[in-house]
């Protein structure tokens, strides 16, 4: 599949975002914590992570380890209780809701486990939506959407509604939507969690192709096979903390040895 190289400066008329990350790091979390309620254990506890441009990073861990929280903070869907989040040189954690929305249009492509497509819009309408919000002309947005739908093999569904598609097809629509503005970062939260195995493999291959074309990926998954095949690096979280940050092969060896949960006895 031919995927355009991501643009790092956005394709809209939105404001240019500033600079602040460590040199070479596209994404940087520095001592980031997130606590949802006072007195409860933090979802993230002083996590520091850097992701370079072009990397494919898998974030793994058991339920409640903070994987999705980390992703939401990078996407600006939530705000940390402490620490800083910087993407493409821009402090994301201090943005207002409005500026966060603009940031998401141009810098981030988000893929959710349960797709989160707008049921009232057609497939093409869903894909075009971020582009239209970013001010792209309708004709240009439609052309871009058609291109992506074709590359993803679902152009025949362009006038269908998401409710009539299979899970795998819906996820492809979500991927197309996430790519329409050529974001600097593609964030995927359990992208294969709601689809069958075959569809999951196909989606994984898509993500691999994207990364090979230069797209920076941050994937949350509990699927070691996905991490092994499609990520060059695995960050293991447990109880809101990074317990390991290794290459994918190292993780795969650990998995083959018995898939020990962090902290568990071999």
């Amino acid at each position, binding site marked *: 599949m031919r995927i355009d190289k991501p643009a790092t400066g956005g394709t809209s008329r939105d404001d240019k975002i500033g600079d602040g990350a460590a040199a070479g790091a596209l994404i940087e979390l520095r001592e980031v914590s997130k606590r949802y309620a006072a007195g409860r254990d933090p979802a993230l506890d002083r996590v520091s992570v850097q992701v370079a441009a072009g990397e494919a990073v898998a974030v793994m861990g058991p339920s409640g380890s903070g994987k999705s929280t980390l992703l939401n903070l990078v996407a600006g869907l939530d705000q940390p209780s402490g620490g800083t989040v910087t993407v493409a040189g821009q402090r994301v954690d201090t943005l207002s809701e409005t500026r966060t929305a603009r940031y998401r249009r141009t810098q981030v492509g*988000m893929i959710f486990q349960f797709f989160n497509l707008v049921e009232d819009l057609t497939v093409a309408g869903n894909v075009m939506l971020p582009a239209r919000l970013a001010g792209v002309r309708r004709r240009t947005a439609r052309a871009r959407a058609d291109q992506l739908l074709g590359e993803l093999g679902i152009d025949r569904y362009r006038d*269908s*509604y998401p*409710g009539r598609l299979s899970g795998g097809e819906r996820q492809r629509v979500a991927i197309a939507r996430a790519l329409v503005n050529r974001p600097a970062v593609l964030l995927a939260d359990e992208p294969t969690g709601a689809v069958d195995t075959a569809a999951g493999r196909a989606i994984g291959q898509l993500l691999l192709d994207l990364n090979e074309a230069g797209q920076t990926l941050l994937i949350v998954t509990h699927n070691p096979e996905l991490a092994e095949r499609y990520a060059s690096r695995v960050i293991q979280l447990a109880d809101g903390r990074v317990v390991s940050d290794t290459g994918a092969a190292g993780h795969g060896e650990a998995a083959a040895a018995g898939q020990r949960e962090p902290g568990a006895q071999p």
Partner: protein
Amino acid sequence: MRAGPVLRAAWAGAARRLVQSGVVLAVLGVSCAAALTAMTLVFAANQGTAAAVAVTHGADLAVTINADKVSAGQLAATRHLPGVTQDAGPYPQTTITVATRGAAAGHPGGGGLLPTGLTVVGRASPSGSLDDIIANPSIMAGMGTSRWPDRPGQVSLAFTTGIRVPLGSKLTVVSAPGRLVLTVTGYAQAQENYEDAWVTPGEIAALRPAGAPAQDQMLYTFASDSTNAQLSADLAELKAALPGGAVASSQSLVNTGEGPPGGNVNTRFVLAFAVLALVLAVLVVANVVSGAVVASYRRIGVLKSIGFTPAQVTAVYLAQISIPAVAGAVAGTVLGNWQVLPVLGLYEIQGAHVFVPLWINLTVPLAMLALTGLAAAVPAARAGRLHAVEAITAGQAPRAGRGAAPYRLAARLPLPETVTTGLAAPFSRPARSAVTLAALLFGLTGVVLGASLNSSVHKINDSAISGLGQLQAAPDGRTNTLSRSQAAAAAAAIRAQPGTQHYVGETDLMSGVTLLVPSKAPVNVGIAGQPDLPLATYAYDGDSSWLGWALISGHWYNGPGQIDVSADFTALTGKTTGDLVTLTVNGKPVSVRIAGEVFLPNVVPTMFLSWQTLGGQAAGLTVNQYDIDLTAGTSTAGYTSALQRALGPGISVGSSGNASFAAGVDLSLFRWLTVLVAALAALGVLNAALIATRERVHDLGVFKAVGMTPRQVITMVICWVIGPAVIAAAIALPAGLTAQDVLVHQLASSNGGMLSCVGTCTSPAWGSVLPGSFVHVLGGTDLLLLALAGLAIAVVGALGPASWAARTRTSAVLHTE
């Protein structure tokens, strides 16, 4: 079926959806209050006092006896007739004609009272062996403290006559020898309406017109009294027991032809309002409840997926809706009783307890709850029959192609994406949008109809005094006319008084009324060829075009030789707008043309003209009063005081407001019903917008996730409701106005002249013709404001959940179902 899981699921559903539960509670509350008010009024209007109130005692039959045909002993013996349980009397009785001010001297009195026939009974005390009359009823508290007459020269009027002169006013008995004057000491309220006024017993003889027979009133109650046939039989027995010709007439509660105290005045309008409130209550409850269930289809699917049977699903939703519905029905019933009882205060009877019948207090909430159950059960049962997956996806996945065309069309507009997306969104979910549209339609139509009916009723009720100016300056009763010098001085004072916008001298003439003392007026105006036709004439010495008499047709006269006439005039003379009429002015013919017809329900035909039209005969005219209008912002009280000081003694300045021809029913009832209608409408619209937005909150999270700013979210949501609101307004405004047009004409034509009659009504039906201004009461600005109000309510309903979504972190919104 196990009740535990069902009730738990129902309670959880109701508790989690507090806003929706609150709306259901409010809708049921207002609906029950409206329905209870409506039912009570309908029932009372149709059944009369005996059914609407608890009557402790009162007379079944009032018989007028010719006193010279029967002895006291013969009358006393009637109490022993079989079937007679109680009797009272004889009370002396006569019929008189009263008038005030100008009318008393043969000049019809604007701002006062035209010759009015009254049946008067002499009673030493309001309390009798058979009935109790309330001498100082609370319903007339606004007039002051009423007293029962305790000496000659005093009269207490039955409040049902509709006469509303201030306490202490002088009524001239124009039918009595010597033109006696009675001072009004109060307004009393009787259980029955057998007489119009009360004086001391010794006064009757002096009031009796020359040549009229002496009569007495006897009151009876019978063992069997509930039907006309039974009372007729009792009356026949009574007549047989008395000498021939002794019984002059009789009345009973059953055959008086009157409804509740206050007569039929405005009753039909009240009924129309009541029916409107009832219909709107039913529609809004059905819409709100069914919409609430439809919005929960996904949850229903989830319940089914974990093992709830179809019957249990239906039970869950019936129970979930019932929790706030029952609370609302109880609250609404209490509210309805609290609000309707002051209206039923019309029926207050000393010693009797006024209440809303128990069967209404039970029927209304049970009926509204049954309707609620039906509205909830139908969609809940449907969802229960669906497979779990179908229920979850029902309404969430539009069929392919539906809605695509509106989006494409909207996209062609040179508008931002958020606006076009918002405008097109309702079309992708037609069923849900239809619920919203229906709520907007019902609400707006109801409010337009209610507001315009309210205005129409008030205008009709005020029509009799609408052409008298805000204030009148008239002789204070010692004389009825102003001399030329007095008139000139008064005019000068009025002209000089700050705050005077318009004024005109009015001369009131009367002819053809045989009971009057022969007129001493210098000018006698009649209709050629119809000397016996009662005719009231208002003649003006200047510009009278500002007076504001409501015209049915034509225009106000704008020069000599033109007149305007009342509907009674046209009916009795056969002449209408544009026709020539020959008047006789002091016996000389004067040809005039009818310029227009005035809406003036009255006891006598009336015409309006200028002094100049009366030609040379007008030299003898004198002014009876000055009608005055004030400039905007002028204090009426301050102006009255200042002008009174300037005019000095002999001329009184006052308002004719209390002399309305309306009777009985408190016009605030209309305001209460209008408030109920408006509240129902608002709740329906608010709920529809709330539901439509609430179920799309997750979508709002998705929009935010892909980059929609909070302001764009709000804009899109407003556009969601604008489309249906505009469509609803385009339909509802003309529909409401058309309905009001038809309804007002129907109601008016069915009144047959009873709407504004006082005392004896002899005029033919006027009601088929109303001035356009009484029907088309809402102007363009009013309609625009109503439409904007409906839109505003819809936007407010939508903005609640939308604002929450816009403000809240996107991750939290995405997790919202």
